């Protein structure tokens, strides 16, 4: 085992692990052995600005938000692909142009669908 070329690496790895874990262990031992623990309900409360916390931290967002994310993606991804397409436009063959046209039309169809669903109108 000691003849393995990775042996010294393993020793170094263990030393590094000990170097990281020893202070943590010391801190835990110090807290357990020495620190005077006097908990109470107020001390264990979540908020620490003197005010009582109200309500629930698990706030729910409307799932309808994903529609905006999808419509954003339509324009965002489209732009990412259109820029290199425009730069290399003069050197492209027929097949590349058709592939790009299909991609753009698919995204345009998504936009048309969202428009027809009334997603783009909000009060």
């Amino acid at each position: 085992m000691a003849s393995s070329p990775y042996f010294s690496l393993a020793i170094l790895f263990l030393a590094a692990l000990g170097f990281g874990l020893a202070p943590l262990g010391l801190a835990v031992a110090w807290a357990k052995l020495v620190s005077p623990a006097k908990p109470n309900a107020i001390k264990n409360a979540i908020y620490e600005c003197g005010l009582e916390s109200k309500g629930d931290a698990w706030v729910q967002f409307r799932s309808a938000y994903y529609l905006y994310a999808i419509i954003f993606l339509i324009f965002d991804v489209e732009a990412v692909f259109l820029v290199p397409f425009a730069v290399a436009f003069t050197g492209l063959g027929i097949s590349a142009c058709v592939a790009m046209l299909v991609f753009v039309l698919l995204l345009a169809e998504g936009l048309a669908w969202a428009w027809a669903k009334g997603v783009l109108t909000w009060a």
Partner: protein
Amino acid sequence: MAVEDKLKIELGKQGVFVTTVNEIYNWGRKNSVWPLQFGLACCAIEMIATTMARYDLARFGAEVFRPSPRQADLMIISGTITKKMAPQVVRLYNQMAEPRYVIAMGACAISGGPFKQGYNVLKGIDRYIPVDVHIPGCPPRPEALIHAFMTLQAKIDAQPLTGTERPRHLDAAAMSEFPVPTQGAHDLEPPANRLVWPLPAPVASGENCG
């Protein structure tokens, strides 16, 4: 005390230094007091000045003002406590780590000061939490706060670790949670914590709050 003070001085002259766990423990505690970063009124300006370069509270190991009560062990009540603020002050005190100490800075924190007649002013924070050092003045100068701090250090230094006089954090049965007052119809309810305010009862709420 295991070794008499005179004997300790005599041994020191001979190059022998003796100490006790109690002394080292309290020496560490009194030189690493972390105050709560918490100002209530104009006295807070003097408190801030005390921490700055001219007065330099860092000389006493107390420059680390903590923004969280969980990391602080000294509360400097610097200013007028309104009855709206009092529950928050008591709650912050409850959230501080043991052993914790309180300096009531200025006339308002001690007794309500010039605003004592105000319907909305608490007449001294020691109605709800135990105060270790009171500083008179309106506002007290930074030197006065430093003096109060040194007084607190002397108090910490003199605390025994065993016996009935030991600090609260070493006494498992000691009270650690102080009741937080609530806003009543005319005054805070209760108007004082009987366990820390044994003086004559404040005037019953609703009759005469002056």
